[in-house]
């Protein structure tokens, strides 16, 4: 590197003081001589030093002219006559020379030939063609008429910087061109170029700086920025206190906004530290978990409200009856299980429950602190205050609490709080605009609290509640199974609807039944919501395991005057018809059949691995013979595994679609088997064929463009060989050439520098 620098320095020196180089050399030598040491100078070999005009050979390293150098050398060094060359040799030499000259001549033409070959179209005709309509078509020059136009024309129209459409340069430019000599113009251009290069370099630098990934660098930059800002703020404080305050406000606002978004899930320093710490402390872990959960809940997208509420009436009577029956059984079971004195325990439980709720509340980080949650602890108030579609039932249950059996009471002690929460919060939250998510959140919390209560209860009782849970689960499952017998995916909303409709009927049934049926219902709802969450999670986890259900849309009945009567008939029949139609066709196991067929077809298309070797094959080769069996087995296994995976994937993705693996056999015969010559990749080749050409596919102009002939010859036109004068023009100006060479040398230097780097 150092060497190189020296060299470059020298070069610069060369350039600068070309004229008095010799004198300078002398001077330098004398200066060094004063010092008493030899001056080291590297002479570039091959490049004749600019100073020695005299025909002297300077020995590298030593810079003194030696005596031998001063001797006049005889021109013909060899005193002896050369041996005359043989005929063959001369001929050979001649041939060689001829060849070399020929090669030189031909290579000179190479770029021209390449250009011609690469040109999109070559026309071998020098005949001018077309009509010159140019002048006639041109509009007349603009003459200003209105005063405004005239004024504008005065101001702008006479400007010399306007580029006329039929001219190449503006008047000012032509003038400038005329004023400048070619040399000056070149210089100016060079200067401009230099400037441009500098600019571009700066740009590049800026770009690189943006891409630096070093953390340390970024840190430094950030610190710098912060200090700068601080400085600025201080200055502002002194100079412009109002602006300073404004800025402060802005910063505060930004901070608030950042906090409001709740996007900071754990990326912050604080939370990261906490995470690290949470390994050792359960509390912190929980706190972190909770925070994360909350942020997730709050940042979740709102789901659109269900639209199929009005379809509730269509629900099956069967389901309701079943449900009611089951719940009745349940209640009986519970009655049998524990008729023990619960009233004594009641108070205890209540106290515990309150504690737990408090704990929950605390855990929630004051989330429940908001005014709308005050109802949580006050049972009777809430019962009175709330109104809604589901409310009467609830009121009944709470009223019953005091009168009906112990079991009922027990359940109601655990549940009504939950219920209350749900009902009281729904309206209050909704006007806050948080909506369903909050609801779900609270539901979860209450659910957990209920579970805690369960745990705190004596075992027998908790068992019963678990029983309720499981029974409700069973109910749900049975419902689901029933529905899922149809091809269509059951949607959960419908169940809700059936339940609500069921509730309407239940009011007329006995009270105990009501209460009991209410319980599983609530549970079920929770479960439903939970299910929903789980479903979404599942679907996100194992995406594509089951096709996402396509939403079904009912095509609404259209009734115009002409067919009113008929349509009415149709609607009356509708319900009956629906059942019959579905029943008619659901039991046909077409689906199974199809799947079976598909499996068979796949089995058929799978390649079979058969061991064609007879037993004992290769045994005679002796103990040294290594059988490749192991390898083969492995290979086979690998292939089979791959096949299996592929199959499974296909099955998972589209169980009702079968694609024939041999579907492309016919076209494969016609397809190219390898990428043809100039292309290096399949993509390249296919891209070259992607554009249809024929008139049927593209417009006429485009077609002409695509089918433009590469070579155009015309009848009767002689195609002459290329004229040398057309292609090799001699440079017109001497100084231009000089400039060119200069630039060239500059280029070389730059390249050298680059290579050294």
């Amino acid at each position, binding site marked *: 590197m150092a060497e190189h620098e020296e060299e470059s320095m020298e070069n610069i020196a060369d350039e600068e003081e070309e004229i008095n180089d010799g004198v300078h050399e002398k001077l330098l030598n004398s200066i060094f001589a004063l010092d008493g040491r030899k001056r080291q100078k590297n002479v570039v070999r091959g490049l004749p030093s600019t100073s020695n005009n005299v025909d002297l050979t300077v020995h590298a390293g030593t810079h003194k002219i030696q005596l031998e150098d001063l001797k006049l050398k005889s021109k013909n060094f060899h005193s002896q006559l050369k041996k005359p060359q043989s005929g063959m040799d001369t001929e050979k030499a001649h041939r060689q020379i001829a060849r070399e000259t020929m090669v030189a001549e031909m290579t000179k033409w190479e770029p021209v030939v390449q250009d011609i070959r690469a040109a999109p179209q070559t026309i071998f005709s020098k005949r001018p063609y077309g009509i010159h309509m140019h002048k006639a078509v041109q509009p007349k020059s603009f003459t200003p008429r209105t005063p405004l136009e005239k004024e504008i024309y005065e101001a702008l129209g006479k400007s010399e910087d306007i580029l006329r459409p039929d001219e190449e340069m503006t008047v000012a430019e032509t003038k400038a061109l005329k004023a400048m000599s070619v040399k000056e113009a070149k210089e100016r251009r060079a200067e401009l170029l230099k400037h441009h290069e500098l600019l571009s370099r700066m740009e590049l630098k800026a770009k690189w700086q943006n891409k630096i990934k070093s953390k340390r660098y970024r840190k430094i930059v950030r610190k710098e920025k912060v200090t700068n800002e601080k400085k600025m703020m201080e200055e502002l404080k002194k100079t412009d206190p109002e602006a300073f305050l404004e800025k402060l406000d802005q910063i505060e606002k930004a901070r608030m906004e950042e906090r409001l978004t709740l996007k900071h899930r754990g990326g912050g320093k604080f939370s990261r530290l906490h995470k690290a710490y949470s390994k050792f402390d359960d509390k912190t872990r929980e706190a972190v978990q909770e925070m994360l959960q909350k942020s997730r809940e709050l940042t979740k997208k709102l789901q659109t409200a269900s639209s199929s509420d009005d379809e509730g009436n269509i629900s099956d009577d069967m389901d309701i009856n079943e449900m009611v029956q089951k719940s009745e059984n349940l209640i009986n079971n519970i009655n049998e299980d524990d008729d023990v004195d619960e009233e004594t325990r009641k108070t205890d439980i209540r106290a515990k429950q309150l504690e737990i709720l408090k704990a929950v509340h605390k855990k929630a980080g004051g989330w429940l602190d908001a005014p709308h949650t005050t109802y949580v602890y006050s049972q009777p108030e809430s019962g009175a205050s709330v109104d809604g579609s589901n409310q009467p039932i609830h009121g009944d249950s709470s009223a019953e609490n005091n009168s009906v059996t112990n079991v009922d009471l027990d359940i109601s002690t655990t549940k009504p709080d939950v219920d209350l929460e749900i009902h009281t919060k729904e309206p209050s939250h909704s006007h806050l605009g948080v909506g369903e998510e909050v609801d779900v959140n609270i539901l979860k919390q209450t659910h957990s609290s209920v579970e805690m209560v369960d745990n705190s209860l004596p075992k027998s009782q908790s068992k019963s509640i678990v029983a309720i849970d499981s029974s409700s689960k069973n109910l749900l499952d049975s419902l689901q199974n029933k529905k899922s017998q149809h091809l269509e995916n059951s949607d959960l909303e419908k169940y809700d609807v059936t339940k609500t409709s069921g509730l309407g009927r239940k009011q007329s049934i006995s009270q105990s039944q009501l209460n009991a049926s209410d319980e599983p219902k609530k549970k079920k709802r929770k479960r439903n919501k939970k299910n929903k969450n789980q479903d979404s999670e599942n679907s996100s986890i194992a995406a594509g395991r089951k096709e996402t259900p396509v939403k079904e*849309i009912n095509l609404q009945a259209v009734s115009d005057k002409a067919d009113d009567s008929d349509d009415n008939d149709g609607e009356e029949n509708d319900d009956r018809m629906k059942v019959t139609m579905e029943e008619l066709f659901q039991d046909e196991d077409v689906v199974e059949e199809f799947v079976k067929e598909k499996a068979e077809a796949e089995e058929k298309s799978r390649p079979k691995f058969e061991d064609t070797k007879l037993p004992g094959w290769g045994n005679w080769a002796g103990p040294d013979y290594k059988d490749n069996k192991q390898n083969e087995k492995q290979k086979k296994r690998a292939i089979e595994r791959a096949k299996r995976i592929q199959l499974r994937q296909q099955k998972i993705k589209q169980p009702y679609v079968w*694609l024939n693996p041999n579907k492309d056999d016919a076209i494969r015969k016609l397809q190219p088997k390898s990428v043809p010559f100039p292309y290096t990749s399949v993509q390249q080749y*296919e891209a070259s064929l992607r554009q249809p050409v024929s008139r049927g596919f593209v417009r006429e102009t485009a077609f002409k*463009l695509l089918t433009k002939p590469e070579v155009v010859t015309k009848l009767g036109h002689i195609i002459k060989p290329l004229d040398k004068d057309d292609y090799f023009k001699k440079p017109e100006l001497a100084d231009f050439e000089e400039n060119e060479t200069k630039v060239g040398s500059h280029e070389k230097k730059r390249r050298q520098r680059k290579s050294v780097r």
Partner: protein
Amino acid sequence: MEPPSKKGDTEKKMKIKYIIPKDPVEKSGARFSFSRRPDENIIERPVPEEQIKNWRKGEHSKGLARTTFHTKKIRAREKVFEKVAEKSARSELLCTEEVGGIEGESTFQITQNDIRATADEATQQKIFDLRLDQFGPYRLDYTRNGRHLLIGGAKGHVAAFDWQTKRLHCEINVMETISDVKWLHQETMFAVAQKKWVYIYDNQGIELHCLKHLDMALRLEFLPYHFLLCSASAKGYLSYLDVSIGKEVAGICTKQGRLDIMTVNPQSAIVHLGHPNGAVSMWTPNIKEPVAKILCHASSLRDVAVDATGKYMATTAMDRRVKIFDLRMYKELSRYQYIRRHCPDHLDFSQKGLLAVSRENVIEIYKDMTTLTHRPSKPYIYHRCDKLVTDMKFCPYEDVLGIGHSWGFSSIIVPGAGEPNYDAMEANPFQSKSQRKQTEVRMLLDKIRPELITLNGEIGQVDVKTAQELQEERNKTKYLKPDKVDFIPKNKMKGASSATKIVQRKKGVQEEHLRAAVRDIVRTKQVEGKLNARNKQREGLEPSALDRFKKKIV
């Protein structure tokens, strides 16, 4: 006309500069060419990028070619392609006609009478009924340019006519039951599936051919670019007949029972058959098995239709549902349940994507069934016929739906159904006789081989499977420089798919292959060397004088 004044004349002459080419032959006289002068600059207004995007056919080629020269050539070609896209987008300007339509809330309340009352006379002419109650339910077909109509009654009545001028070409009774009628490539010939065989008649009603290959055909379809007449028979036999040479290209026993539901994908020429087990199978003449099979419904299928873009398929079945499938992914897009008593019978897509659904004597036309954003629950147009609808087809390039029913034929207006701008290269509704002849010749010259019917349009692609096999084989041979693998790296997240990383990964794989190949070569050489060394020591292997007596193995 007065001759212009002399002064003006001279001025004009001054301005206009004619260059009359005299160079080649003087006898041939002057010839003018009106092409643009090469040095003339015309600045065109740029076309919006979105428009051009629609016309681009795919990704442009990447990477370098084998030589710099060819790289240059390919780049130049890419530029031409871009220009073509731009030109095509620019010429969209010439499609001046716009799609019609009715807008509003409940458009289905508008009856044909309302339309007739407000429309112009030419449109009024398009609403008409043919009362043909003697020869039973009718099947119909329009020619590709939408000009001519062919109707065939189940009891043998066949009539072909220009439905716009109502000029009758022919009217015959074939004295046999008719199950389907179909125009061939032009209005000069049509095929009729009769009780036993398929017959071909010309537009005079003269029987040209009796195709005994195609027996007991229930449905006919015609592939105009391949000149293939497809027929689906009651015995479950699907056959392809090349009508240009009269040869049966393929006969496939589908083993699926009676085939009375058939439709053709107009883009890929794949035949869709509907089966009573709710499945739709897709067929090409190239293999004896279906190329694909989709289970669409859990009950017996009623009809299948494929839209003009070839992307969507509509099906309907006995479960009274209409389902839309995406044929690119074989996936259900949307499903519609009829809450009506009757089951949807027939389906047909119009050129602009309207879907007509018939049930008994009612026809409902739905808009935007294939879009995912808007799912209509109410029809766009509602129409009621006198009798049971047995067939219906949208007329190409017209806003007209033709309906065949048991009392004849009726034609109704469906605003916004047809493509408003016709491409005369493709189908010209205003074709003259000479143009028709020209088109016929060109169609025959452009006939596509049946082998090119594929499911996914693999034409113009390299057979990668075979290519890989060949490559492997080649790489196995000794001492040959192994081929490079055309490896497309998997897309990875987090900046691992940056250009440099991709290249690095590619190189890694290629080098690995190369290394493996070199290793193999070296090993084989080593083994051979060992063997050679060993063989040298053996005595028997050196040539001896007695070798000449050995038996020579040829």
